[in-house]
């Protein structure tokens, strides 16, 4: 497995678009964090600043991690590099797990840096600014959500085998389908995977619409693991 992870890491870092996307996730979040902090500093009624106040770019980063997940498998099919990959390493599930480890760790690493810099921005630009126990929970949840959404993207990529289609589905689901469904059918809210994932990173959830932060996170991960499993079964079953 170590060899496969090394191979996937080389592939990940040797494609320009994936590196740019990972960096863009961090840079955009930090940039939005600076803008938000400056705005809140100038607001006379801003109150005590928390981590969430300097992370309005989190969702953009999360989408980019999802896109990375789609790309790590979708590009293999787009350029047919999946064939040399599986000729060299014919154990398909293990190859998928190696890809998952690489993309999830990359998302986690960027998120950790992103959180650290955003916390620093808050400390430097906001007064008062504090990181309380809820913020600490949010930090952990943010890292987990970044990894989970990358996994979700990878699952979609494995199912549709087209990077563009996978990214479009990912965005439409999160930005259009889930909000519309949750608004139209009130009871559908707790069953929307992306919204449950977002719930995990909120300081306080919306108990009427969604589950608690913990239950939302568990539901999101359960949904993601099942979707990834479907992707893995299809990759194993279908011709490469």
């Amino acid at each position, binding site marked *: 497995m170590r060899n496969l992870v090394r191979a996937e890491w*080389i592939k990940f870092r040797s494609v320009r678009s994936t590196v740019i996307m990972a960096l863009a996730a961090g840079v955009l979040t930090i940039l939005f964090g600076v803008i938000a902090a400056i705005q809140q500093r100038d607001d006379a009624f801003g109150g005590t600043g928390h981590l969430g106040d300097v992370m309005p770019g989190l969702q953009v980063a999360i989408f980019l991690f999802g896109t990375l997940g789609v790309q790590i498998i979708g590009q293999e099919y787009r350029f047919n590099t999946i*064939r040399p990959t*599986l*000729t*060299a390493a*014919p154990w398909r599930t293990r190859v998928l797990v190696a890809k998952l480890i690489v993309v999830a760790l990359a998302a986690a690493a960027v998120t950790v840096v992103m959180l650290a810099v955003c916390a620093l921005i808050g400390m430097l630009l906001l007064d008062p600014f504090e990181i309380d126990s809820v913020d600490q929970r949010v930090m952990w949840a943010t890292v987990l959500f970044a990894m989970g959404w990358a996994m979700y993207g990878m699952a979609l990529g494995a199912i549709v085998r087209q990077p563009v289609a996978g990214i479009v589905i990912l965005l439409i689901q999160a930005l259009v389908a889930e909000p519309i469904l949750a608004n139209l059918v009130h009871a559908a809210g707790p069953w929307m995977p992306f919204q449950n994932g977002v719930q995990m990173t909120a300081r306080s959830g919306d108990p009427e619409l969604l589950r608690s932060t913990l239950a939302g996170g568990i539901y999101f991960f359960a949904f993601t693991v099942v979707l990834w499993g479907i992707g893995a079964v299809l990759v194993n079953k279908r*011709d490469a």
Partner: protein
Amino acid sequence: MIEARGLTKRYGSTTAVDDLSFRVESGRVTGFLGPNGAGKSTTMRMCLDLDRADSGGVRIDGKRLVDFPRPMRSVGALLDAGYLHPTRKAKEHLWALAASNGLPRKRVDHVLGLVGLSEVANKRVGSFSLGMKQRLGLAGAMLGDPQTLLFDEPANGLDPEGIQWMRRFLKGLADEGRTVFVSSHLLSEMALIADDLVVIGKGSLIFEGPVHDFVDNTARKWVTVRSPQIQEIGDTLHNAGHQVTASGPGAIDVVGPSAAEIGELAARLGATLHELSPKTASLEDVFLEVTAGAQEYRGDAGAPAPPPPPPAAGPAAGGPA
């Protein structure tokens, strides 16, 4: 050695490969021939377990590909030169493959040198010509120094010098005792490099065996005779029950008797001979004849036909399946 048994692949109602069995021996170059759409590439992909067979299976040295702990050390393949990410550098492509099998990076430098791409190792493959991509694909196949190699149309995109190099390269691999399985539509290439042939049409086996058996047992043979007294010679041969056709002014093609027999007959008739040459159909002619009923796609009636050998009784399938 590669051994395929009862390989079958269906796409909906179309059977691409139908109960196909064959063996590819070590130490020989085995050509894999078939018309377009015969199922060659599908078979190649099934050999590597990339396409899932509906039934049957392939064993390489008695094992499935997944059973090799480090497959690249045993099996190398070049299926298509285009299977590359365009923004990845040549050496990074090979590094990733090498890493997946725990191969050292110095193997990457070695194979890049082997295929003559050392100078462009740091270039992105999107800028490569088809010939360079083909060489990079070969380098990937050779990374693990494998015993068994599969190549799908390896001469594609190579210039004449590259094709000659490829010919020597494949022969050299077989001479080292490796199993070399090469699919190609270039019959002239196959005639030069292959020791054995596996010929398929519409997914089924048509012939399996040495190239010379394919040509000797299947090819039509005839004698071209040119003489000022061609009418007399032709009539005598026809009356003796041989097949005679006019092949030009003062010339006939005769199927049946040997050149020596025709020469003796001419001497008895007091005829002068300007030409007496035994002919054998080329590998290409034999291939076209043998696969005539097994072509999935063919040109319209107006397309130029291959030069026909003289008519004869139907081809005898030498060494048939």
